[in-house]
């Protein structure tokens, strides 16, 4: 069996003085869509910050494409082909819509995603390309955040709480578009509080509880009782 695309082994991480992750082990295989669920404070955001390199970790804890990335900076991780759609979108307010997208191409990675391809996926972004990114509606801003991550032609894309703060109808549209966006050859991790949305688009799911993996299974067959037990820690 080939190396997994992303592998976390015994991952410990701290958020300030507070230990947020305890020995987390996870695997993402090539072409897989993985969901990570968990309550507030379960460690999802810290996990994302560790994987993307915003927090550095001890050697050997995170491997991407067989390479140890635990100690790399975020820009080095991005160059290897890992992109994130951050929680709360976090567009650059002094950049226009188009400039936000172009920043995503900063890594210089070649592939199917170009400005034209993103504009074809979200035509509204082309129409509004010259306005400041933060002048858009929440849903349109999410399109920019997704497009910005795609522009680096990643092999693994992380979606951190993409439904947060958006209207239900917009969330539905974005989730409907996700399978097409992730497409072939790309793997994805979807971090969500909205469990049913996360399960609907993923192949496998991990549940985090107080910094530990409390459940792992196939999204299609996992039972509701197991999830609520793993999610809330209720016996």
């Amino acid at each position: 069996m080939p190396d997994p695309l992303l592998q976390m082994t015994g991952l410990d991480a701290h958020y300030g003085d507070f230990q947020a992750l305890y020995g987390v082990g996870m695997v993402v295989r090539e072409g897989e869509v993985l969901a990570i669920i968990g309550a507030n404070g379960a460690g999802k955001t810290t996990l994302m910050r560790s994987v993307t390199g915003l927090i550095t970790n001890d050697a050997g804890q995170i491997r991407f494409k067989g390479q140890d990335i635990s100690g790399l900076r975020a820009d080095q991780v991005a160059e290897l082909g890992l992109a994130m759609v951050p929680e709360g979108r976090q567009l650059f307010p002094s950049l226009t819509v188009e400039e936000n997208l172009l920043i995503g191409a900063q890594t210089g990675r070649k592939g199917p995603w170009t400005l034209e391809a993103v504009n074809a996926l979200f035509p509204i972004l082309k129409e509004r390309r010259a306005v400041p990114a933060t002048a858009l509606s929440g849903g349109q801003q999410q399109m920019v955040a997704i497009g910005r991550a795609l522009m680096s032609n990643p092999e693994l894309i992380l979606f951190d709480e993409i439904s947060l703060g958006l209207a239900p109808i917009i969330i539905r549209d974005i989730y409907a578009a996700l399978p097409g966006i992730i497409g072939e050859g790309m793997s994805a991790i979807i971090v969500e509080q909205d469990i049913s949305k996360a399960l609907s688009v993923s192949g496998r799911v991990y549940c985090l509880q107080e910094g530990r993996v409390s459940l792992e299974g196939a999204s299609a067959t996992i039972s509701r009782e197991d999830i609520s037990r793993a999610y809330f820690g209720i016996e």
Partner: protein
Amino acid sequence: MDWLNALIQGTLLGGLYALFAAGLSLIFGVMRLVNIAHGDLIVLAAYLGLVVTSAIGVHPILAMALVVPAMTLIGYALQRGLLNQTLGDDLLPPLLVTFGLSVILQNGLLEGFSADPQKLSAPGLETASVALGSISLGVLPLLTFGIAVAVIWGLQWTFYKTSLGRAFRAVSDNQDIAQLMGLNKRHIFGLAMALALAVTAVAGILLGLRTSFDPSSGGGRLIFGFEAVIIGGLGNLWGTLAGGVILGVAQTIGAKIDPGWQVLSGHIAFLVILAIRPQGLFPRMSG
């Protein structure tokens, strides 16, 4: 007519102040670093100009061809080697470190060049003038103002029309997310300081052509630079030019009333604007 003359001379002087201020404004905008050593770096550039002109005997304006690249490299090395380590959530460490750098630069220059005032000499250019009706305009001040406008335009263009400028603005907005997009903020900060000191190099040579300088001249240049930035409004380069012009005009008009009032009236104009419009005349705008 004398007043009109003072107004025009002050405007031209403002170009030099805008050059002092542009580098300060740029690095504060990109990395929230207040560089107390900025004035001393201007004076360092003037001394480098002096070394180049006396060593190979070229015109000070041509010496820029060597001094600008040298200051650019110094800027990048200074940022990567020292100043990046001071940046964080706290504004105090960079202030203290650049203050220390200022002391080191002043004493280093004193050691190397003594306290004697120096001047870059460009016979012909310094005294040349063109007549405009009854007003006579110095070629050097005109050239300085022209260079200032060109430099500000160039910085503005770099900021809003190039991928480097996009990177500057992205890092300024959100360092973490910019890093996620593949921008190494330490490198970007290095480039910003390199660009700022390139501008400083131009400012230093033009300063040395206009007046004499000595190792302790930096403090005054820093104050003028700060005042121009604050009058114009942070984060707006054309505003910085306007700030420099207002400061220059205030000074020449003050000097017209009484020669002893030149510097004082500039400070008064600054304080008045700070009191009635603390955000500056043209605060941050885009495009």
